């Protein structure tokens, strides 16, 4: 409220107190988030190695980065991981939500069981799956002692398949949450529309395909945004589950950045990779946030 010059004290106070209250949070975020982002982006154009250094090298770090097979593996893994993770979480989440929405007895018991993994740390999830999938003591070994001698399940130790174990653990952790999102969407659909469609003679299959699932669009969008953002940030799970191995078989951009910056002392290249991750997330989040926050006044 812009006020005329003759406003009384109370009115003037009321005009600047809110901004004053907001300012500490804003200042902290501007410096520690956006300032730091600029700093990191700047570092990605410098010859920083173990410590920040300010020798300008232009795009050199980026061109080096794109020539690294390590980075290429990370990106390929990211592609496989993100695609499978998002698809599986969505399919399982939607499926479970639809099934749970059929007036299931015991829904109140099942729902928390599907959801609790989301409350766990990825480190805990990683640890649990790491040993369960370990061929030496886990599932394979159990099957052998149960008499199925030829059973073989060593994906976590296998360069070609290890990335799928990361997918498995990640899907285990998040699919229940996606279920909750879809369930909320389903419960928000007007029952009268469904009744009308049944009067029109729609089968259950058609009811879902033509009426219900199209109405879940917002839930699909939210799920996609949340899942893709989680996928790009996946770090702890890989550290705990495979440590990026065997070899580099499960490296992802997040682990790549970490090891290049902190163990290989290639800060410039690390910053370049972080910048690319940021761009990827911004490409998804910015349009989403924009559409969600657009003025509805």
């Amino acid at each position, binding site marked *: *409220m*812009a*006020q*005329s*010059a*003759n*406003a*009384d004290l*109370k*009115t003037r106070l*009321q005009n600047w107190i809110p901004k004053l209250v907001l300012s500490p949070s804003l200042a902290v975020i501007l410096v520690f988030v956006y300032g730091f982002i600029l700093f990191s982006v700047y570092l990605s154009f410098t010859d920083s190695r173990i410590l920040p250094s300010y020798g300008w090298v232009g795009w050199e770090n980026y061109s080096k980065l794109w020539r690294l097979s390590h980075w290429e593996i990370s990106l390929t893994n990211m592609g496989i991981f993100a695609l499978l993770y998002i698809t599986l979480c969505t399919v399982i989440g939607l499926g479970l939500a639809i099934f749970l929405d059929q007036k299931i007895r015991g829904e109140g018991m099942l729902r928390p069981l599907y959801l609790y993994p989301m409350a766990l740390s990825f480190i805990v999830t990683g640890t649990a799956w790491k040993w369960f999938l370990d061929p030496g003591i886990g599932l394979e070994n159990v099957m052998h002692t149960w008499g199925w001698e030829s059973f073989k399940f060593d994906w976590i130790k296998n360069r070609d398949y290890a990335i799928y174990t990361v997918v498995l653990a990640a899907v285990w952790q998040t699919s229940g949450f996606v279920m909750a999102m879809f369930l909320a969407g389903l419960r928000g659909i007007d029952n009268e529309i469904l009744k009308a469609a049944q009067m029109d003679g729609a089968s259950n299959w058609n009811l879902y395909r033509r009426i219900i699932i199209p109405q879940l669009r917002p839930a699909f969008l939210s799920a996609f945004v949340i899942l893709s953002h989680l996928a790009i940030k996946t770090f702890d799970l890989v550290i705990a589950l495979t440590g990026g191995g065997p070899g580099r078989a499960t490296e992802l951009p997040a682990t790549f950045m970490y090891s290049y910056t902190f163990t290989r002392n290639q800060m410039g290249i690390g910053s370049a990779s972080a910048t690319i991750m940021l761009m990827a997330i911004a490409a998804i989040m910015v349009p989403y946030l924009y559409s969600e926050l657009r003025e509805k006044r």
Partner: protein
Amino acid sequence: MGFLDIDNATKSYGSVEVLHNVDISVKEGEFLVLVGPSGCGKSTLLNMIAGLEDITSGEIRIKDRAMNGVHPSNRNIAMVFQSYALYPNMTVGQNITFGLEMHGVPKPERQKAMREVAKLLQIEQLLDRKPGALSGGQRQRVAMGRALVRDPDVFLFDEPLSNLDAKLRVDMRTEIKKLHQKLGTTIVYVTHDQIEALTLSTRIAVMNGGYVQQLGTPQEIYDQPANIFVATFMGSPAMNVIPAKVVMQEGRPAAQIELPDGSAAVLPFSQDNLVSYEGREILLGIRPETITDPDSADRKSSNIAELTNRIDVTEPAGSDTFVSMQLGGRDVISRMRSDVPVQPGEMFTFAVNMEKAVAFDPQTEERIQQSLA
């Protein structure tokens, strides 16, 4: 100078002006109702008086003190909101005294004022309850109590009855009117309900599109609407607006109206000043209750015209029956006593009280002023 002066007030959001040069002067003890359809600017104007929205240009004065830039709490006003806006976490008593507390009134005085108001509004037994445990009507009373306890210069009401069911609304309407008569306070009251406006007010400002269309007593607004908007907005069913042509009959101006069968009815005007409109098209405004059967026509009227036309639809509504017909190519509604024998499809002779008829210019939609003889 009035008690509350709104002087050339405008309001813009960015480049969009939503309220245009409003001039209203309210005298002490007046009950001014701002009425209009949603989006007409009435609530904005009320919020500007309250200080909840600032004034883009112009001035608002209460008791000759300019209010621009004065904080709402320093204007000595009180407001009753549409949703009642009772603080959900406080008891009724705390709700009523919160304003006094904020103004530093000592507790004993607050309690005394609270008890007086509670007695006045008969809500003494509710003082320890939370708003959530109250009915709509009780909340309404508490909201009024919160306003009354402040003993303000001006009371502002923002659609206070629109959340109540129909029966309660009528009761509370009467209650508010009684309260106003008893306390003689100055009230500005916003509503979209024209009946509320007519029953409660001492003066009405009819608003539309950010303009005050007409400012006047309920009688003036009803009988001499300034334009077609006011004519059709105020009154239910709305005033009939019929295309007509001014002709001369026996040396006096009359309205010639086309009937569905192709013939024409000629209804003489009471006033002579429409002579200058001879041969021109006008819009004739006739209220439904001034079209009746010949037996029920107003005996005090000096100008009852009759016309015979086919009845289209009859809608019995208990005490009255609404009868529709076609006049000048439009649906026209008349209001009959319920015992008048009317059947759809039959020909019927209607009596029109032309003394109450008004004429509008079809271009400007303004009423053609009839300088009364």
